[in-house]
């Protein structure tokens, strides 16, 4: 699904990602874990071509993101860390339809997909609500709905549980798991919380821009976690 080959990325003089190679299988559930500032978000943005590497390449379904980022983005949806800033329209159902407008859906089709998606996430009752009036948990779900409506093969969640209470945390994680198991959507869950590895099959550990572990969750051990600065 996604393949990164020796990617390097820097802001000004500082390398944020150093020689990262990895592969994400279709249908898998991968957790991308690392301490604050380790480069998780930057790496994740490479997966849908929002950021392209300075050196090396990223392929999404065989498409080089440097050559065709649009098609990379059609395949890989992104739920951002700061979901406050990812809603464009003021009314929930309109915002959820934003991506579908860009895909040039007809109005009827758009409406039915939006309704279906909202219902699926059990937020049908919020359709006409102003996004500024939503709670954090609801905003998160609306942000997800906007991505899910576009029917991507893979979704990146960047720290989806920050700012949520326990109930909403569990809800969003359960939804993510459902999307993976039932809808066969490839999931990349960016997190800095060990507890959220629960649902993942694969784990990638980042430490200051380098991958220090990449493999089955069962092979992850205390030493690696400690090395990444993630133990408590």
């Amino acid at each position: 699904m996604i393949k990164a080959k020796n990617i390097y990325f820097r802001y000004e003089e500082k390398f944020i990602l150093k020689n990262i190679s990895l592969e994400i299988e279709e249908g898998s559930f991968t957790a991308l874990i690392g301490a604050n500032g380790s480069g998780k978000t930057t790496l994740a943005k490479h997966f849908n071509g929002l950021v392209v590497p300075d050196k090396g390449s990223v392929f999404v379904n065989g498409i080089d993101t440097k050559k065709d980022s649009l098609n990379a983005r059609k395949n890989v949806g992104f739920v951002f860390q700061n979901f406050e800033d990812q809603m464009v329209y003021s009314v929930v159902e309109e915002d959820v339809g934003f991506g579908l407008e860009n895909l040039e859906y007809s109005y009827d089709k758009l409406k039915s997909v939006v309704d279906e998606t909202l219902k699926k996430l059990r937020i049908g009752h919020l359709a006409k609500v102003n996004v500024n009036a939503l709670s954090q948990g609801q905003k998160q779900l609306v942000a997800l709905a906007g991505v899910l409506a576009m029917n991507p093969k893979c979704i990146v969640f960047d720290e989806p549980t920050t700012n949520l209470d326990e109930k909403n945390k569990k809800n969003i994680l359960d939804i993510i798991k459902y999307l993976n198991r039932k809808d066969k959507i490839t999931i990349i869950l960016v997190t800095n919380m060990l507890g959220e590895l629960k649902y993942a099959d694969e784990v990638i550990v980042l430490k200051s821009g380098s991958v220090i572990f990449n493999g089955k969750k069962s092979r992850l051990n205390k030493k690696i976690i400690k090395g990444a600065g993630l133990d408590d």
Partner: protein
Amino acid sequence: MIKKLYFGQYRHRETMLHSLDPRLKIIYVLVLSILAFLSKSMNDMIVFSSFILLCVLLAKIDVKTIIKGLRSFYFIFAFLFLMYLMFSPNQLRQGLVAIWRFLMFILISMILTFTTPISGLVTAIEKLSSPLKIFGIRPRNIATTVSIAIRFIPVMFVNFERMRESMISRLADFRKMNHIKLVVSLMLHKMLKSASNLSDAMYSRLYNEGIEINKILKLKEYDYVSIVFVALFILLIY
């Protein structure tokens, strides 16, 4: 704290005015506003007001909403009235007409925002501005800009308020120039950050300025009826 977080007083109702084509509504508002300013005599005003009143009834707007919506204008009404009273008491009648006209003007816009969701307005603006295409302006960009402004201006106020509160809790003094500078630069920084986040999110969702939105706006029977109706009304006044 800021209580009112968003613009627009749209209320969902099933009425003729609600389902009228938003493009037509915008055009009517423009036409009616011009009419309001052109009507000079008391007679014109009475006919005109009855028409507006009829629209208010048709839109099922309750009086409470109107009174609430007008609250911020009372001061201006009072001011206008006082001006006439002080400077040209012999023209008091005209003064009243002026205020009355102003009131009509506000009511017309209220009917529009009450019966039309922002998305409808935005789409209508997009459609109405499509002749601008010949100048290389993309209607979709205009529409998206309007939507984003509507979405983020209230958020900005909230952010400002949060920042102000947290600065005041740490004893900031907004009479000091450097504290004002600080809050302004923090706001700018925050806005730029949001803008960059937002553009990432828009590109992730395949933002495409070239397309025309397919929210089909097609005139329906009662849209045509309304055109005839408004045209008749204009003829009636003149």
